[in-house]
């Protein structure tokens, strides 16, 4: 039976969507899992822990079309301190955009990392609308795909999966606006303020 290390590469790991995706993964996985957030100070500790696992699942958000710096920095340390027995690396990535394929470049970066460093590459789940899907009636779709991801890793039948909210793009624009307006309202910020075109008060 596989033992799966889950590494959260989100910069806001303790209160991230990635943490929720990781929890869903653990709940639906029949193998033993252990969860770790990547912090600024635990890279070497994590590198040592990798030895104990047959599989490693990176869970992280898309940042500026690629891997977030939080994860990038850890990958560089892992490259310098590789485990003797290399686990199979899988990816659970989410982006706030509707299209799961916007995650492709970041996934390819992880594939390249594996190739450059001799890790077998496993499964992928690309989540679109990942900022909001867990708070919508479509949560079950994400949970279902995460279960399939877990099953593929446990059985070593690695595959690439994707999920998003099955709604037209125009609906998504309205739904995401409503989501962000609620977010702003909680901070006492109006729609007009959120729509400001000024950047740092346009000092240049």
């Amino acid at each position, binding site marked *: 039976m596989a033992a799966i290390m889950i590494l959260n590469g989100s910069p*806001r790991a303790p209160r991230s969507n990635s943490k929720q995706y990781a929890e869903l993964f653990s709940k639906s996985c029949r193998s033993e899992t252990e969860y770790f957030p990547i912090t600024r100070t635990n890279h070497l500790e994590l590198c040592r822990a990798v030895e104990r696992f047959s599989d490693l699942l990176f869970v992280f958000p898309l940042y500026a079309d690629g891997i977030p710096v939080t994860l990038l920095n850890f990958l560089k340390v892992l490259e310098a301190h590789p485990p003797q027995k290399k686990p199979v690396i899988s990816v659970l990535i989410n982006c706030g955009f*509707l299209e799961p394929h916007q995650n492709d470049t970041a996934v390819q*970066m992880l594939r390249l990392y594996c190739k450059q460093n001799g890790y077998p590459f496993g499964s992928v789940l690309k989540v679109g609308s990942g900022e909001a899907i867990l708070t919508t009636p479509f949560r079950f779709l994400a949970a279902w795909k995460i279960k399939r991801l877990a099953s593929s890793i446990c059985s070593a039948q690695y595959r690439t999966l994707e999920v998003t909210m099955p709604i037209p793009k125009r609906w998504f624009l309205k739904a995401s606006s409503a989501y962000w307006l609620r977010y702003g309202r909680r901070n006492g910020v109006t729609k007009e303020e959120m729509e400001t075109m000024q950047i740092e008060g346009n000092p240049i």
Partner: protein
Amino acid sequence: MKLILSDRHLELPEADHPSIKFIDLSKLKIANCIGCFGCWTKTPGRCVIRDDAVNVYPYIAKSDSVLYISRVKYGGYDTTMKTMLERAIPVQQAFIRLVHGETHHVQRNVAPKRAVVIGYGALSKEERNLFCKLVARNANNMNFESFRVVFASEQELEATVRKEVSAWRPL
């Protein structure tokens, strides 16, 4: 305005011109984005982390020509450039629009750009191809109206940058 954003020190007398801003990121103190969404939902257009990044992204927004110089790592930008690009999201709004049929964030006052991205240190053709794909993705999210990717070795980097900057003249 034209912006040169580099992840390392470069000797560039060609950049000594009032319409060119040269920023050496390696000399700045820029923390990681913490994903708090403050720049969208608390202090729109302003990052809540008040370090050197807040002096850089207004130039990114304002410039109609940009020249980015970065080491390539795993097919993407290495840490120094990537950290800055992640911290530049105050130039966007939280709200989503369609760009070429894909969902992307609405830009604030961001000039459309002609972008040249110089990558150095790429280890293979596969890594260079992936970096090109990344810049093509950036084009949609960073308001590039056109872009070009150039690769250079570390030894030829400065000459490559100088050549690109010289091509901006007459300014």
